[in-house]
């Protein structure tokens, strides 16, 4: 026998830890967040989405301009155009009297954006005159430009042009005509540089100058500022884009949240109960998928008693919720069916877990990843539907703007003022892209199978 001493019975000292947790334990969500942060595209789109929300919510507080206000002195102005104007007297009708001397086609007084007044001398051959305006020189092909007026009366030797005058150079021509309106030889032309003007009444009503400054005729003043220009009725584009964002994002975020919530409830019930009830519920979902969206939009609009000139946004929301939930319901049902058969569910059930606990603790949290991804992809879809419906005139009622209706109006003036179309179109594209990229990033971050592949 070996001699045993008390030292033999001392506990073994703990060996140096070989394995240990070197990093703090990570929850699923924390891990996902880290992975999302590593994804540059997703992060920048997240910032874009936050910026968009600020634009919509804080924007109108900072840029407090009525989006319906019409500034008819600055119609269709592109961003960053000049706005210095000279104050002149109020407009008064003119009947051709003038002290301007000279011969040939001449200006009766200084040309302004309020009116260009022309005078000329009678030609014996003429029965009447036709007055043209061009933005290019007339040239040898005698392209006189836009015919503004025609008088079959050779005693009318003056003309006042007030049509959409811009502060730029115009080329006016007067062409004699015969009794049937045929152009004769002997046209006269004049180059006119138009000055931007405004009136004291206009300055006062728009509050263009500080109250303590006394402006007089002949002084210069800056017209109202429109950072992103104005639309075809002189309304501020920035204010309209902000107001439009409210409508677009209300539909874009409100509708997906509601129909996805409904889809989760419906899908998890069907998936959990299974069997006959599941079959019936999913066939009903198929039935809803088959309903034509546009037709139902129109029906809802009527069913809600939306009268003429009232906004169709609320029925649009309801229609979206009622018609778009089946996709989410199917997805969630599939997930639940899969999770139901997992080992840990069986174990939990054996340990005596109740149905409620099973659903809330084990099943729903495991579907959340899928749901979150669905939401981020549903948002751009809903924004696009809103834009489309407003584009075809089923959405907002004027003067309320939405990005879709603004694009619709902008497309009509695409050739003359492209910014009216480009700005809302850019916002729609950027928003849709941002939400799509964010959704893409979220899917990557939340997919458990991708976790250990780094």
């Amino acid at each position, binding site marked *: 026998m070996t001699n045993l001493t008390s030292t033999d019975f001392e506990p073994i000292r703990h060996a140096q830890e070989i394995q240990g947790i070197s990093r703090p334990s990570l929850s699923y969500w924390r891990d996902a967040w880290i992975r999302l942060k590593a994804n540059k595209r997703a992060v920048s789109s997240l910032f874009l989405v936050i910026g968009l929300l600020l634009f919509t919510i804080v924007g109108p507080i900072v840029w407090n301009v009525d989006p319906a206000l019409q500034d008819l002195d600055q119609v269709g102005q592109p961003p960053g155009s000049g706005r210095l104007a000279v104050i002149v007297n109020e407009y008064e009708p003119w009947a051709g009297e003038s002290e301007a001397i000279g011969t040939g086609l001449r200006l009766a007084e200084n040309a302004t954006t309020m009116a260009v007044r022309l005078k000329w001398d009678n030609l014996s051959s003429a029965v009447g005159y036709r007055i043209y305006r061009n933005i290019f020189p007339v040239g040898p092909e005698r392209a006189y430009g836009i015919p503004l007026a025609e008088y079959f009366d050779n005693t009318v030797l003056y003309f006042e042009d007030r049509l959409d005058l811009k502060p730029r150079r115009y080329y006016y021509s007067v062409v004699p005509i015969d009794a049937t309106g045929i152009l004769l030889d002997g046209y006269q032309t004049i180059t006119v540089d138009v000055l931007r003007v405004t009136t004291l009444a206009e300055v006062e009503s728009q509050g263009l100058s500080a109250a303590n400054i006394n402006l007089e005729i002949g002084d210069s003043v800056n017209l109202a500022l429109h950072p992103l220009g104005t639309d075809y009725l002189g309304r501020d584009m920035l204010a309209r884009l902000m107001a439009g964002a409210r409508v677009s994002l209300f539909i874009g975020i409100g509708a997906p949240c509601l129909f996805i919530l409904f889809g989760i409830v419906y899908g998890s019930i069907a998936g959990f109960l299974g069997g006959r009830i599941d079959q019936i519920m999913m066939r009903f979902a198929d039935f809803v998928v088959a309903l034509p969206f546009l037709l139902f939009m129109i029906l809802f609009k009527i069913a809600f008693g939306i009268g003429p000139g009232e906004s169709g946004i609320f029925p649009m929301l309801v229609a979206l919720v009622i018609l778009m939930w089946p996709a989410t319901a199917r997805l969630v049902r599939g997930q639940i069916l899969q999770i139901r058969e997992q080992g840990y569910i069986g174990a939990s059930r054996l340990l005596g877990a109740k149905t409620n606990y099973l659903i809330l603790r084990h099943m729903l949290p495991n579907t959340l990843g899928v749901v979150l991804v669905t939401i981020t992809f549903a948002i751009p879809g809903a924004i696009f539907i809103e834009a489309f419906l407003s584009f075809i005139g089923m959405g907002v009622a004027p003067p309320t703007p939405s990005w879709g209706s603004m694009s619709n109006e902008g497309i009509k003036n695409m*050739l003359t003022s492209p910014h009216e179309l480009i700005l809302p179109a850019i916002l729609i594209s950027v928003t849709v892209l941002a939400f799509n990229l964010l959704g893409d990033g979220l899917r990557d971050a939340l997919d458990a199978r991708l976790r250990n592949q780094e």
Partner: protein
Amino acid sequence: MNRNGSNGGSAARSLALYAAYVLLAVAILIYILAFFAGNTGIAINGGAINEERNSITIALSEEPPQLDSTRSTDAVSFVVLAHTMEGLIAYDQNDQLTPGAAERWEIRDDGATFWIREEATWSDGQPVTAHDFEFAWKRVLDPDTAAQYAFILYPIKNAEAVNQGDLPKEMLGVRAVTDLVLEVDFERPTPYFDKLVAFNTYFPLREDFFESTNGRYGADAAMLLSNGPYILTEWVHGASMVWEKNPYYWNSEKGLLDEIVTAYITNDANANLNLFKDGQIVQTGLTAPMLPTAMEQRWQIDRFMDGTLFFLEFNHREDRVTDNLNFRKALYFAQDPSELVYKVLKEASYLPAESLFPIWIQGLQGAFRKEYPLPKHSLDLEKAREYLDLARQELGLEDFPPIILLTGDSSLSLLAAEYYQELYKKNLGLELRIDAQIFKQRLAKMTSGDFDIVMAGWGPDYFDALTFGDLFASWNLNNRGRYQSEEMDNLVRTAQSELDPQKRMDAFGSIQELINSDVVIIPMYERGVSFVVDPRLKGFKRRSVGPQVDYNYAYIDSSQN
């Protein structure tokens, strides 16, 4: 390594080869498809003007619903019918009346006689007779035909009763005395009957041909019989038409082209502009946003006032706030049509409107509006607000309910509607709701009175002040706002039957004043059109009365090349 490299190289090469094959296949497919597409329907001859064939290519804005002259109501049908048909009297190039199928006529207080020319021939070679007119007019007034333009025949004796079904067709005051003499009795003196006769609804129709079509008259090219300068020879529904010269037509001054091809049916103004730019059609209209392009292309832009007046018409039914005169006056003084035209619509050929009677209406010697001038209207906000306060007291309202502004769905009418919405909100604090509807629906709502204010337009049917003057008579079905006034009815009756021209014009002057003082309407603008025509085409005409575009006198001038 080496193998890998060469493998990669050959893979890239074969990939490039595949791409080339695919591209080639696609190109061939496109050509084959284009070839078949070119063979379907009417071969588009390529080019606005074909001098060899003496033919031109045009575009129509819409497909005519049908080409039965007794039933057609739309502008496009009128355009086609003006080329394929001819009435007793026609308009010449200067919009003056000129003999058509009738070589002379006589209008009396109690009736009229038309002597039809012997040379007038249908496109199948048979002569046009007085019976054809008698048959056509009786058909228009037959209640079973349900012709919307039947009212334009009401000056004929018993016409209204026949149209209502109260009298048999035989009682209508029109009869063919011989093959070449047509006798008409009047219900009341109608000194402007010659102008009416030039209208589409008065065109002839041959009974035996009509019966042979089994009720499909005007539905197809083969179901038409023409007596005008052109014959409709091909009609591919929804796509194209061909009008060919009518060899039997009597007048050598009209129908100078051998063929007019309607290769395009589209109302997209931009599409028409591009077709013109590419030299595919001979003329096109220009809207305001297109004018810079037109100036850049250095085209010779032309203009034309088409005679149509647009106005805000109030609903005068009793349950509406717009029935209140002071309310209407407030709205009238808070607006200025020149701002609408010059700053909002920006159409170079439009004219701010001042009166119910457009500027081109003729008075006794000169222009009606010079002989009966209205006081100049100007924006007066103080006056407007005073009237609004008066209206508020009279109606006993704290706030006015939202006003429904019924309008069309074209971009121009929406533009005007949005302008008025903000204008009345800013100037009077009123809330306007825009109800934009397609034409048919708007008409239905106008008829049922489902509006407060409607943006309406009225184009002339004949060259006489009465075409506008009788619009607000209480019995006129086109008086959609149901304006009723004893004074107006009396004035319209005078204008309809007074034989003394001075008294008749005075009646129109009083109608104009009454419309203005009662603010029955707010005039908006008189419409015009800016357009360009291929310089090689001469004699093309736009009209305010009759067809909007008229190629009857058009010919190709080859010296313009």
